[in-house]
C-alpha cells in the first residue's frame, strides 16, 4: 500500500485534532477504510475530501452515491404499509410516515449507505473540541416548495420544535439530555449553532435522516403538514389521501440535481402480503421495504431485485435482571448460549442479516470492537452454567412479546432451543399496542415482563441503544439492568469524539454485556428493498428512507 504522506500532511493542515487523529488511525491501520469514511463524515470532513484522503492513503475511491444516469421521466410507484397516524414531521413515528416525510422534505445531512453522513441542507459541520457546541453551515439558495428560501431561522425553528417538550415531538427522546429547547441558535442566515447539554461525538446523526423527524420546515410551520408537505426536496406533493396513498411530482426548482422521475406514487397497503402481490401483479414498481420472512417469495424470483443494506435494526431479547429466574447472570448467559445464531441468519433471514453478539454494537458501527469474540451456540456450556447457578433442573417462564414481523418465529425458535437446558418457555404473543402498553414502567408488558422480545429500528449510532434500554435509568430498560460500571462506560463512550476512544469503550461495553447478558442480541437484520427488474437508481438508507431522485425504469 502506497501512502502519500505529503498529501496527507497537506490535508491535515486545516483539520481539527480529532480529524487528524482519525486520519492517523487510518494511516496506522488502526482504522479501516470504511470506518474512516463513516467516522470522518460524522466529524464533518467533506466526502470529496475523504475520498481524496482514502485514495491518497491507498484505499481506492469512495463509491459514488450517484450511480449511472438512468432514463428520466419515469413514474415510480411504491407500495407502502398504510401510515398508522397523521403525517406530521413532529409526531410521525412509523416507517411509511418517515419515508413520505423525506420525499418532499430534506435533512441537514443524511446517513447514506454504510452510515456515511452526507451533507444535504448543511454544507458542512464541526464541533468544538469538547463536542458540546456544533456549528452547521447551511447551503445557500435552497428554496421551499412554498417559495421562501431556507435560512438559519427555519433550521433553528425546525430543530427547536422537535426539542420542545410542549410540542408532542416524537424526537424528544432523541434530544433528551442532549439538546434543550432554545439551545439551537442562529449565528447568521447560513450558520446555526447547537449547544449541547453534554458532550456528544455523534450529534450530527441526530440532525440527519437517522432522526427521521428532523426534516427542515419553514419557520412558519403550523401543523397541517398533510395539506402541503412543504419542504425543500427534489419532489413536491401532488396529492395526499389518508389511507390511500400519496403522489409527488418533480420539483423543477430544486437546488441540486433535478430528479429523474417525473412522478412518484406511494400506494398504501394494509400489510406486506398485499404489497408483494401488487409488486408481483405489476401494480407497483417497488416496495419501500420488505421483511425477510415475507420477502422470501421475492428473494429467488428473477423478476425482482432486492436491494439490501446492512443496518443495526434488531430484536432485543431481554431478561429481567431483578427477577428470580434471571437474577443470576449465568442463567442469562446460558440462555444466550442456546441460540444458534448462524441458523437464525441463514435460516430465518436467508442470509440477509448479521450475527449479533449480545450488545448493541452491530458490525455496521465503526466503533464496534470486532476483536471481541462472537458468542456461539454451546449447549454443553449452557448446561454447566445452569448447574452452576443452581438451576440445573430448569424452570418454567413466560416469554412475552409482540406479534411483529419475524418475532413470533424467533420466539418459537428460542423456545425450542432453551428446551435443551430444561427451560420451559410459555409464549405470550400480544399485538403491538398491547405489548407496549403505555410504554412506562408499571403500565407496559414490554417494560414489566420477565422476558420479552422487542423490535428496535436502525440507529446510525449506537448511543440511544446503549443508553435507553440498558442504562440504570434507561427509560426502555426492560431488562431492569442496573450496572454502574456499564453506565460509566456508556457515558464515556458517548462523550468520546475520537473513534479509537469510542472503540476502546465499545470493547469494554461489549465484554461487560457478554458477561452480564441482560439483553440477547441475536442478529441485526438487513434492510431489504424489493424492486421490479429494470428499476434502477433507488437508494435506501439504512434507516429506511428511500431516495428516488436518481431512480429510473428500464
Amino acid at each position, binding site marked *: 500500500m502506497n501512502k502519500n504522506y505529503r498529501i496527507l500532511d497537506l490535508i491535515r493542515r486545516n483539520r481539527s485534532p480529532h480529524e487528524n487523529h482519525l486520519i492517523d488511525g487510518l494511516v496506522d491501520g488502526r482504522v479501516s477504510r470504511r470506518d474512516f469514511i463513516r467516522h470522518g463524515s460524522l466529524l464533518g470532513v467533506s466526502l470529496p475530501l475523504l475520498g481524496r484522503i482514502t485514495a491518497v492513503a491507498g484505499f481506492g475511491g469512495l463509491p459514488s452515491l450517484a450511480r449511472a444516469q438512468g432514463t428520466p421521466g419515469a413514474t415510480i410507484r411504491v407500495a407502502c404499509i398504510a401510515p398508522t397516524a397523521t403525517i406530521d414531521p413532529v409526531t410521525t413515528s412509523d416507517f411509511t410516515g418517515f419515508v413520505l416525510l423525506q420525499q418532499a422534505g430534506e435533512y441537514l445531512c443524511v446517513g447514506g449507505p454504510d452510515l456515511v453522513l452526507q451533507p444535504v441542507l448543511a454544507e458542512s459541520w464541526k464541533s468544538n473540541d469538547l463536542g458540546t457546541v456544533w456549528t452547521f453551515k447551511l447551503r445557500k439558495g435552497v428554496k421551499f416548495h412554498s417559495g421562501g428560501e431556507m435560512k438559519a431561522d427555519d433550521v433553528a425553528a425546525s430543530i427547536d420544535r422537535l426539542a420542545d417538550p410542549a410540542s408532542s415531538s416524537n424526537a424528544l427522546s432523541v434530544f433528551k439530555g442532549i439538546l434543550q429547547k432554545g439551545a439551537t441558535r442562529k449565528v447568521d442566515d447560513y450558520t446555526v449553532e447547537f449547544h449541547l447539554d453534554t458532550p456528544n461525538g455523534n450529534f450530527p446523526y441526530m440532525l440527519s435522516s437517522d432522526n427521521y423527524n428532523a426534516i427542515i420546515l419553514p419557520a412558519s410551520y403550523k401543523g397541517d403538514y398533510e395539506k402541503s408537505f412543504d419542504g425543500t426536496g427534489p419532489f413536491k406533493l401532488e396529492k395526499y389521501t389518508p389511507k390511500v396513498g400519496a403522489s409527488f411530482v418533480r420539483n423543477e426548482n430544486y437546488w441540486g440535481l433535478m430528479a429523474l422521475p417525473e412522478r412518484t406514487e406511494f400506494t398504501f397497503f394494509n400489510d406486506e*402480503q398485499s404489497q408483494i402481490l401488487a409488486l408481483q401483479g405489476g401494480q407497483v414498481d417497488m416496495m419501500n421495504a420488505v421483511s425477510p420472512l415475507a420477502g422470501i417469495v421475492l428473494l429467488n424470483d428473477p423478476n425482482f431485485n432486492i436491494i439490501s443494506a446492512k443496518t443495526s435494526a434488531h430484536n432485543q431479547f431481554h431478561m429481567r435482571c431483578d427477577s428470580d429466574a434471571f437474577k443470576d447472570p449465568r442463567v442469562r448467559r446460558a440462555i444466550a448460549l442456546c441460540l444458534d445464531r448462524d441458523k437464525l441468519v441463514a435460516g430465518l433471514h436467508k442470509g440477509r442479516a448479521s450475527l449479533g453478539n449480545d450488545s448493541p454494537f452491530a458490525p455496521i458501527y465503526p466503533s464496534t470492537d470486532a476483536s471481541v469474540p462472537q458468542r456461539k451456540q454451546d449447549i454443553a456450556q449452557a448446561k454447566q452454567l445452569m448447574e452452576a447457578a443452581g438451576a440445573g433442573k430448569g424452570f418454567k417462564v413466560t416469554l412475552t412479546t409482540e406479534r411483529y414481523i419475524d418475532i413470533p418465529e424467533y420466539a418459537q425458535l428460542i423456545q425450542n432451543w432453551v428446551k435443551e437446558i430444561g427451560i420451559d418457555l410459555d409464549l405470550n404473543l400480544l399485538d403491538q399496542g398491547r405489548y407496549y402498553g403505555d410504554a412506562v414502567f408499571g403500565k407496559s408488558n414490554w417494560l414489566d415482563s420477565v422476558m420479552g422480545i422487542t423490535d428496535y429500528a436502525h440507529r446510525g449510532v449506537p448511543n440511544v441503544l446503549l443508553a435507553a434500554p440498558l442504562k440504570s435509568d434507561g427509560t426502555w430498560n426492560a431488562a431492569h439492568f442496573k450496572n454502574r460500571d456499564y453506565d460509566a462506560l456508556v457515558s464515556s463512550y458517548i462523550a468520546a469524539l475520537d473513534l479509537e476512544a469510542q472503540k476502546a469503550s465499545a470493547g469494554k461495553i461489549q465484554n461487560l454485556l457478554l458477561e452480564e447478558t441482560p439483553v440477547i442480541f441475536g442478529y441485526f437484520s438487513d434492510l431489504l428493498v424489493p424492486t421490479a427488474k429494470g428499476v434502477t437508481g433507488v437508494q435506501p438508507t439504512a434507516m429506511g428512507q428511500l431516495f428516488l431522485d436518481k431512480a429510473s425504469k428500464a
Partner: protein
Amino acid sequence: MVFLGGQVLPGNVGRAILGPFADQRAVDTLNHTLGVDRPLLTQYATWVWNFVQGDMGTSYIFRSPVAPFVIDALGNSIKLAAVAFVLVVPIGILSGVVAALNLNRPLDRIISLGGLSVAVLPEFVTGIILVLIFGVWLRWLPISAAWPRDSGFFTQLYYLILPSLPLFLVLFGYIARMARSGMIEALDSDYTRTAVLKGLPWRTVIWRHVLRNALLPTITVIATQTGYLIGGLVVIETLFRYQGIGSLIVTAARGKDFPMLESGTLTIGIVYAVATLSVDFLYSVLNPRIRLGSDQ
C-alpha cells in the same frame, strides 16, 4: 357498550401515535392536545352530542374528520357485501327451491349437504381454498381485493369476485337451506294440497301458492344475515386486505381512536337496523297476516 369497550382498551392514544419509543412528555402533550386526557365520559358526551348533529368527530389518530374514513370504509364494505348479496340471493333461493322440488333425490342431497358444508366453514378457510385454486394455481383472479387506484367499475368487480365468494358460500348455505325448508313446509301444507286438488297446473301451484309462503321465512333469514355479514366482513377484509368497515374498527380499536371506533360501530349498528327494518317492512308487505292484522 362500545363506550365501555373503549374504557378498557389498553394503551393510550398519544402512545399509539408516537410509538413506544417516544418521550413520555411528548405523549402527554399530544394527549392533552387531542383531548383524550379528559374523562372518557366527557369524551363520550362530546362525541355523542356531535354525532347527533351529524358530525362524527375527528379521528385522534389521523387528526382529520372521521366521516370520510367511515363513509369510504362503509362504501367498500357495501360494495363487497353487495357483490356477494346480488349473487347469493337469487342463486341461494333457486337452489333451495330446486332442492325442495327434488326432495331426497340426489340433486337435493347435493344441494343440502353442499349448502350445509359451505355454510359452516369459516370464511377464511373457504377463502384460502378459493385463493389457492383461483389465485395461486389457476391465476384467474387477483388474490387481494386492493384494486389499482382509479379502477373502473368492472375492474373493481373483478377484484371483488374472490373476496365475495366466501361470503357467497356461507350465505348460500343459509339461504338455500331456509328456502328449501320453507318450500318443503309450503309443499306439505294443506293449502298446497287444496291448490293441487283444485286441479291447478303445477306451475300455478308453485308460483302462486307455494313460493310466496315458502320464501317469507327466507327473507327473515336474509335480514338476520346482515349482522353476520358485517362480522364476516372483518375476516374477509383481513384475508383479502380490504379497507372496509371491519378493518376500520379493528384498526381504531387497536389505536384507541375513540371517535373512529364509536362512529364505525354505530354505523354498523345503523346499517344493521336499517337492514332489519327494511326487511321487516318487506316481510309485512308480503305477509298479509302482519300487514292487516287480525280482525278477530
